[in-house]
C-alpha cells in the first residue's frame, strides 16, 4: 500500500519498475500528464485510478475525485482539459444506487469542469476482491502555444505559491473513515483547477512548475520538484496556510499537515518578476482566494526542501516514506 501513498515508495516504484519497462522519453519527466504533439495539436494526456474509502465524504465523493483529479493533472501541464474516459471496477454486491450516485457526481463534476465524458468501461469482480467501487479516469486536453510547465523548469529565485489552505481533503476523509471517525466540521477541497490555471497563464505564459499536491501532500510535491529540477526549496513555516481545524486534527492524530492530501489545490513556481501579478490573479479567481506566497526556490541544498520555523530554526521536509500513520499519544 505504501507504494501508492504518493511518497518515496511511489516514486521508487515508478522510477525502478514502470519507467524502465515502458522506456520512452515522455515518461522521463515524471509529470502529472504527458505532453506531446499529435496532428499539429499540442496535447496533454493523463490517467489516474481512484480508490478512496469511504466512497462519500464531507464535501465530495469518489465521483468528484475521479473527474477533478484527472482534470487537475492535465491542468498542471497548463492544458485546457477537453475529454475524459471513465472505467468502473465494481465489486459484486455493491448497490446500484451507490453506483448511480457516483455516476451522477461524475456527470456534475464534468459539467463544472467543462469536460466531456466521451467513453467508458465497466467490469465486475467477485465479492471480496474489491472495495465497492474503483474508478479510473483518463483525460486529454490542449496545451496553449508557448506554455511549457514541468517540474524540471524550477529555477532559483522562483516564488513558491499555493492556491489555498492545505490539508482539508485528507482530514475530511479521515474524519469519516470507518473506525477513525472524529468530529471536525471540515469538508474536502476537491475542485477543478483548470480555470485557475488559465487565469494564471493570462498573466504570463512563463509559469515554470505547477503541481496539485494530492497524496503525499505539499511535502511530497515539493520534494519531487526539487529533485527533478536539482534546486532547493525554502519555505516559511508561518506563511503556509493551514486551517485551524486541519492543524488541530493533525495535532490530535500526530500527522504533519504538509503531508496531508489535497484535491483542489495547486503549488506554483513562478518567476519572481511575475509573482505579484500571478498572486493577484489567483486571488481574483474563486479557486485561488486563499493563495499565499510560502517561500522560494533556492540554489542551496539542491533536491531538498527546508522550512524556516516560526521560532527561527530550520528543518528538512523530507519525501514521506508512505502514508502517515497516526501516533499513539
Amino acid at each position, binding site marked *: *500500500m*505504501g*507504494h*501508492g*501513498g504518493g511518497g*518515496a*515508495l511511489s516514486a*521508487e516504484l515508478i522510477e*525502478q519498475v514502470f519507467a524502465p519497462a515502458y522506456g520512452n522519453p515522455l515518461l522521463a519527466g515524471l509529470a502529472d500528464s504527458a505532453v506531446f504533439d499529435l496532428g499539429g495539436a499540442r496535447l496533454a494526456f493523463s490517467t489516474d485510478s*481512484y*480508490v*478512496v*474509502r469511504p466512497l462519500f465524504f464531507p464535501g465530495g465523493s469518489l465521483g468528484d*475525485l475521479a473527474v477533478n*483529479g484527472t482534470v487537475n493533472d492535465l491542468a498542471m501541464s497548463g492544458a485546457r482539459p477537453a475529454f475524459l474516459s471513465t472505467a468502473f471496477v465494481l465489486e459484486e454486491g455493491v448497490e446500484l444506487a451507490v453506483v448511480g450516485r457516483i455516476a451522477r457526481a461524475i456527470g456534475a463534476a464534468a459539467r463544472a469542469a467543462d469536460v466531456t465524458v466521451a467513453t467508458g468501461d465497466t467490469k465486475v469482480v467477485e465479492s471480496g476482491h474489491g472495495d465497492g467501487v474503483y474508478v479510473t479516469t483518463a483525460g486529454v486536453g490542449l496545451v496553449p502555444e508557448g506554455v511549457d510547465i514541468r517540474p524540471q523548469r524550477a529555477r532559483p529565485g522562483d516564488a513558491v505559491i499555493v492556491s489555498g489552505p492545505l490539508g482539508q*481533503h*485528507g482530514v475530511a*476523509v*479521515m474524519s469519516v*473513515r470507518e*473506525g*477513525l471517525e*472524529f468530529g471536525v466540521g471540515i469538508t474536502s477541497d476537491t475542485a477543478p483547477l483548470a480555470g485557475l490555471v488559465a487565469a494564471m497563464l493570462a498573466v504570463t505564459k512563463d509559469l515554470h512548475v505547477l503541481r496539485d499536491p*494530492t*497524496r503525499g501532500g505539499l511535502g511530497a510535491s515539493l520534494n519531487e520538484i526539487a*529533485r527533478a529540477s536539482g534546486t532547493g526549496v525554502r519555505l516559511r513555516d*508561518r506563511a503556509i496556510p493551514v486551517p*485551524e481545524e486541519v*492543524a*488541530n486534527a493533525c*495535532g490530535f*492524530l*500526530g500527522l504533519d499537515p504538509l503531508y496531508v*492530501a489535497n*484535491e483542489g489545490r495547486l503549488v506554483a513556481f513562478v518567476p519572481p518578476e511575475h509573482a505579484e501579478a500571478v498572486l493577484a490573479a489567483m486571488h481574483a479567481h474563486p479557486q485561488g482566494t486563499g493563495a499565499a506566497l510560502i517561500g522560494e526556490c533556492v540554489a542551496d*541544498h539542491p*533536491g*531538498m526542501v*527546508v522550512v524556516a*520555523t*516560526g*521560532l*527561527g*530554526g*530550520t*528543518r*528538512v521536509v*523530507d*519525501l514521506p*516514506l*508512505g*502514508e*502517515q*500513520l*497516526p*501516533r*499513539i*499519544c
Partner: protein
Amino acid sequence: MKYIEEFHDPERARRLLDEIHATATRPWALMEVCGGQTHSIIRHGIDQLLPENVELIHGPGCPVCVTPLDVIDKALDIAARPEVIFCSFGDMLRVPGTDRDLFRVKGEGGDVRVVYSPLDALEIARKNPGRQVVFFAIGFETTAPANAMAVHQARRLGLGNFSLLVSHVRVPPAIEAIMTAPSCRVQGFLAAGHVCSVMGTAEYPDLAKKHRVPVVVTGFEPLDILEGIRRAVRQLERGEHRVENAYPRAVREQGNPAALRMLEEVFEVADRNWRGIGPIPASGWRLTDAFREHDAEHRFDVSGIRTEEPAVCRAGEVLQGLIKPTECEAFGTACTPRTPLGATMVSNEGACAAYYLYRRMNAPAPQGSRIPREEMNPVG
C-alpha cells in the same frame, strides 16, 4: 486554533530565549523525558536556538521505542492467527520485530487494523463476536487509563472476545534508572506533561531531592518547552532542585483522580523490560488477576518466542541519553526510516527519526529498493 497559536508566538519565544541566554552562565545538561517533546524540539529547531552551554539530552519517553522486542514478537505471533483481529495505534505497525513487522503480517493476510482508541477496538469486538479482538496496549501513564477503561468496559459488556497485549511502562522508575547509571550526565529534567496530567506530580519530589535535580513539568508546544528550559536553568544556576509545574493548564498536583482510580482497579505495578535499556524494577503495569481473562498473553500461547536485536543498533544508548543519534555509526546509512534497525528510527517520536527527518541538511536524498508494507487506506 488561537490557543495553540499562542504557544508558537515568535516574540514570546524570543523573550524566553533571551532570558535563557542571560541566565545560563555554566554548562547544563537537561533531559526531556518525552518523545513528543523531542519531536517538537527538533521540528521547531529549539535546540539550535539555545545557548551552547545548555544541552538537551533526549530521554526514553517514546512508547513505541521502548516496547521490548519480545512483546513485538508476541504481537506478531498473535496478529498472524486467523481467528484474531489485531488492533493497534498506527505507529506500532512499522516497528521491526525479530524478522518482520505488523505491516508484513497484514500483507500476509493477518487482520491488523489501525485504531485511534482502545474503545474503537472494543467496538470491533462487539461487532465481531465470533473472533478474538486483541488491542496492543503500549505506552506510558498517558495511554494506560484509556486501556484500563476498555478492559473495564469489556467486562461490563460481557465481551469475552476482547483482550489486551499489555506493555505499559512508568516514567518515574525510568528517571531513577537514568540517574543511578554511572555514565549519567543529566542535571535536570523536563518531565512529560501528558504523563503528569494523569499521575499528578507526587512521584517527583523524592526523585528531585534524592538526585538533587530540578524537575520541571513541561508541555509540548514550543513556548511550553522554552518555559520548561528557562525554569530548569534558573533552578540550576541558583543551586535549587525542586519540582515546578510549567504546564498548569493541563497538570494538577493530584493528577486525574478518575483515571487513577481506573488504573488502580485494572492494573498493578510490575517489573518491565525496556527495549534498548533492559529490565527496570517496578517500571510497568500488568493486568491484575481479576482481569487476567482479558490478558492476551494468558489467552494465547506465546511462550517460546526467541528474539534477536541487530548487533550494530545503539538505540539503547540513544534512549538513555548517552549518545546523540548522529553518533551511531549506522545512523543514516544502514539505519534509515526505510531500513530501521531500531525503534528509535522507526517511531514518529523516536530521537533518531527526528534527527533523520529534520536535520539532514547536507545528506543525500534517501534511496532504497525494498518492497515494503501495507499502510493506511488511501484518501484519493
